[in-house]
């Protein structure tokens, strides 16, 4: 991360914001929600509070405009520059401007206002751009499902270097009420992998461990087993030839040998041959039959030759072209008994690579003995 030289941020922690106008691309309520959520990204990890005001000038004024718009930085039409914001100060300081020539959305078709606003408010609070490709303050845009968004560690360190951490009020521990293991409710896994015959299902800070077909799944904190791993991992796969599991988050990956995380972790995904425009891996699976590892990014997949340790030049390919019937996105995958299993939301597709087709559609938690 980096901060503005000579600008240590706002000298107060209660800040105000005003939405000066709206984009016609979204309902006003959607814009309100996206902006409020984007401020919450920063208030969740600092003592800062953000109060919306309506009838007077706020610390952070938010507006939509196109081309020249009464500052020295005209916008440039569709794409290219999406938005900009000004460092903490009086007047225009802290304000955030969004290019009305873009298509704004609360989904993924167009530019997601929540994601862009969260980045711009980082500037409004005193953060500069980060060169960490996993960081929110990285200059280029890439879509993340807002419900899966977690402020990356680099940004947390940056904003807390300016404002400190948020004091979390002591909450008396309430003994957890016994309830149906939450693995039996519809669930979306962050990542799934095998490990020496077991299957691990990762979600948020925990994972379910399916030791065998007959046993009840165990539920553990990730850090209980591998303290060096981050929470909210995004992809994982086992490469049995080396008795390794590779775990991905952002533009980094960690190598696990059983209970050990190797000393030279984390490594950069760009060492595997990804272009710099890739900022994260959504899913990964090694196919023992072909010796290839498949990496899923957005609506495409790359195939990696483990023997040559290089990406196959025929990829990336569209998921819908290479894996008919699996859909356009994959956010977790693993292989068991020669079959590939791809997860999308609460669904799981069993795929027979030899026949090149889906053989079953299952619930995502079908392996967890519900």
């Amino acid at each position, binding site marked *: 991360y980096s901060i503005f030289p000579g600008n240590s941020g706002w000298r107060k922690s209660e800040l105000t914001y005003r939405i000066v106008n709206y984009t016609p691309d979204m309902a006003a309520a959607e814009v309100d929600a996206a902006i409020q959520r984007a401020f919450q990204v920063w208030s969740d990890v600092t003592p800062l509070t953000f109060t919306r005001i309506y009838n007077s000038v706020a610390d952070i004024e938010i507006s939509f405009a196109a081309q020249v718009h009464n500052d020295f930085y005209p916008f440039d039409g569709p*794409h290219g*520059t999406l938005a900009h914001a000004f460092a903490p100060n009086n007047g225009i300081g802290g304000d955030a401007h969004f290019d009305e020539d873009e298509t704004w959305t609360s989904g993924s078709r167009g530019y997601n206002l929540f994601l862009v606003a969260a980045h711009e408010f980082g500037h409004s609070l005193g953060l500069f*751009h980060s060169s960490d490709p996993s960081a929110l303050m990285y200059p*280029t845009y890439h879509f993340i499902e807002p419900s899966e968004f977690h402020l990356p560690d680099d940004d947390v360190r940056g904003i807390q270097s300016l404002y400190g951490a948020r004091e979390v009020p002591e909450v008396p521990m309430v003994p957890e009420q016994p309830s149906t293991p939450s693995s039996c409710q519809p669930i979306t896994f962050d990542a799934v992998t095998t490990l020496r015959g077991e299957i691990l299902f990762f979600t948020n800070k925990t994972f379910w461990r399916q030791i065998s077909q007959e046993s009840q799944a165990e539920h553990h904190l990730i850090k209980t087993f591998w303290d060096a791993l981050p929470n909210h991992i995004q992809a994982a796969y086992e490469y049995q030839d080396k008795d390794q599991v590779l775990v991905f988050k952002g533009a980094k990956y960690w190598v696990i040998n059983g209970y050990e995380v190797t000393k030279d972790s984390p490594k950069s995904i760009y060492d595997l041959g990804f*272009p710099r425009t890739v900022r994260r891996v959504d899913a990964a699976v090694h196919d023992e039959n072909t010796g290839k590892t498949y990496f899923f990014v957005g609506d495409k997949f790359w195939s990696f030759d483990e023997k040559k340790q290089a990406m196959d030049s025929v990829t990336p390919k569209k998921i819908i072209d290479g894996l008919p019937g699996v859909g356009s996105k994959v956010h977790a995958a693993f292989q068991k008994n020669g079959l590939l299993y791809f997860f999308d939301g609460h669904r799981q597709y069993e795929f027979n690579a030899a026949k090149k087709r889906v053989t079953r559609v299952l619930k995502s938690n079908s392996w967890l003995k519900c």
Partner: protein
Amino acid sequence: FPAETPQDSEENAKFAEEYLKNYYNLKTDGVRQGRKKSGSQISEKIRQMQDFFGLEVTGRLDSDTMEMMHQPRCGFVDVGE
């Protein structure tokens, strides 16, 4: 990448110059600078951008550099004031 036509490279150079002015404080203050001087200045700014994004630092507009320059992004500078 198909071999660039002279026109491609002219367009790329223009696009890149605009990009470097916006985000890397490239100064072309309108006065026609010596071709040699402005060339080395642009090459230096390309190196700065390649270094920031972890690209191979060549000082030239290779395909990875052009692809990164075409990514939608924030309007704030990456280095400097």
